[in-house]
C-alpha cells in the first residue's frame, strides 16, 4: 500500500495532467493540423467562422 504522501503526489500529478489536457487539447489539434496540412491554411481562416 503506498504511503499517504505518495498518494497525495499521484493525485496532484493526475490533476495537473487533466488540466494540461483540458486547456491544451484543442490548441494541440490546431497546431498539428496547421503544420501538417497540405496546403497550409492561413490562421484567420482557421479560427473565424466567417472568413
Amino acid at each position: 500500500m503506498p504511503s499517504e504522501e505518495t498518494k497525495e503526489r499521484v493525485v496532484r500529478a493526475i490533476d495537473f495532467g487533466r488540466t494540461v489536457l483540458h486547456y491544451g487539447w484543442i490548441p494541440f489539434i490546431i497546431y498539428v493540423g496547421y503544420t501538417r496540412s497540405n496546403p497550409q491554411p492561413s490562421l484567420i481562416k482557421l479560427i473565424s467562422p466567417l472568413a
Partner: protein
Amino acid sequence: MAAASHEKSLPPGPYTEPPAQPKKSTLFSAFSPLANASSRFSSWRTALGLPNPGTVENLQKEVKTTHLTNFIFDGARADLMKGLSMDPAFQVTHSFQLASQSAPPTYSFGALFANSKGLLQGNVDHEGNVSGRFQQNWSGSNISKVQAQLGMQPGHTMIQLEHDYSGLDYTLNGKVINPSPLDGSGIYVGSYLQSVTKKLALGIETLYQRAPDQAEVSSSYLAKLTGSDGKWIATAQFQPIGVLQATYWHKLSEKVEAAADLQVIAAPMRRDAIATIGAKYDLRMSTFRAQLDSTGKVSALLEQRFAPSFAFTVAGEIDHFKNAAKVGVGVMIESTSLTPEEMGMVPPPGQPHF
C-alpha cells in the same frame, strides 16, 4: 508451415547443433507436437474462410444509422464546417444551437485531424467543457482509442482507454473507464466476438465494475446473424439479469433500408419493453428517416442538400401518449479554402460549383 515444424520436431543432430544451446533444442522438441498441432489448427482455421465479425461496438451499427434516435434534435441549429485540407483531413466546425426544449443555447467549436495512421478530434463549448477523441491505428488489426470528457467543475471528468484487436475470424476489445491508479477502482470491459459459421457470430462481453469498497461483475451474451451477401443482419444481446435487445436490419434496395429494434427488460424490479421500427431513404440529394415506436412516438428527419456545400435539416417528433411535440430546423454550411482540384475531385461539366 507444417513442413517447418516437422523439421523442428526431428531430434537435434549432435554435429549441427552448437553445444551452447542444448536446453533450447530439448525445449523445442518437447513443444514441437504442440507447435505442430497449433499450426495445423491455424491452417485448418484459415481454410474455413470465416469472415471477421466486426467489433462488438459496431454490432448494431446498421440499425443505429437507419434509426433517427441518434440524429434527432429540437430547436434551431447551424453548423459551419470548414475543410482546410483533404489529405491529411483537417477541418474545423462552429456549431450554434438555440431554442431547444431540453438544453440551453450553446456554441461549440470542433477540430478534427485525421490521416491513415490515426485521428485527433476535439470539441469545446462556450462554458469550457472539452471532449476529445484520439485514435491510433498501429496496424490493420490493432487500434488504440482514447476518449475523454473534461468539465469545468471537478467530478465531470471521464476518460476511456480502449484497444481493439481484429483477428482472422474474431475480434477482441478491452476497455477501461476512469481507472484510478491508487485504489484500482473503475470500470473494466472486455469483449470477444467469434465467427462460428460464415453467417453466425457469437460473443461475450464482461463488465467488471470496481469501487473502493465493492466489486461487481456482469456479462452479456451476443449473437449476430448475417444474411447472404449482407442483405440483412439480425443481432441479439442478452444480459442474465433479464435484459434482451434484439435488432433486425434489412436492405430493401440500393436506396431503402429498414430496421427494427426490440428491448425487453424483465428484471424483478422492473418490467418494460420498447419496440421501434424505422426506415431510411437515401435519395440523390437528400436522406429521409422515419420512425415509429411503441411509446407512441412518431418522428421523421429530412436532410436536404441544396448544393454540395449547403444542407438543410428538418426534424419532427410527436409523442401521442404524452401529447407533446418537438420540431427542429438546422442548416449546415460547408466551406473550403481549397479549389476542387486540390480536393481531388473534378466537378462534372455543366454543374455549378460553390
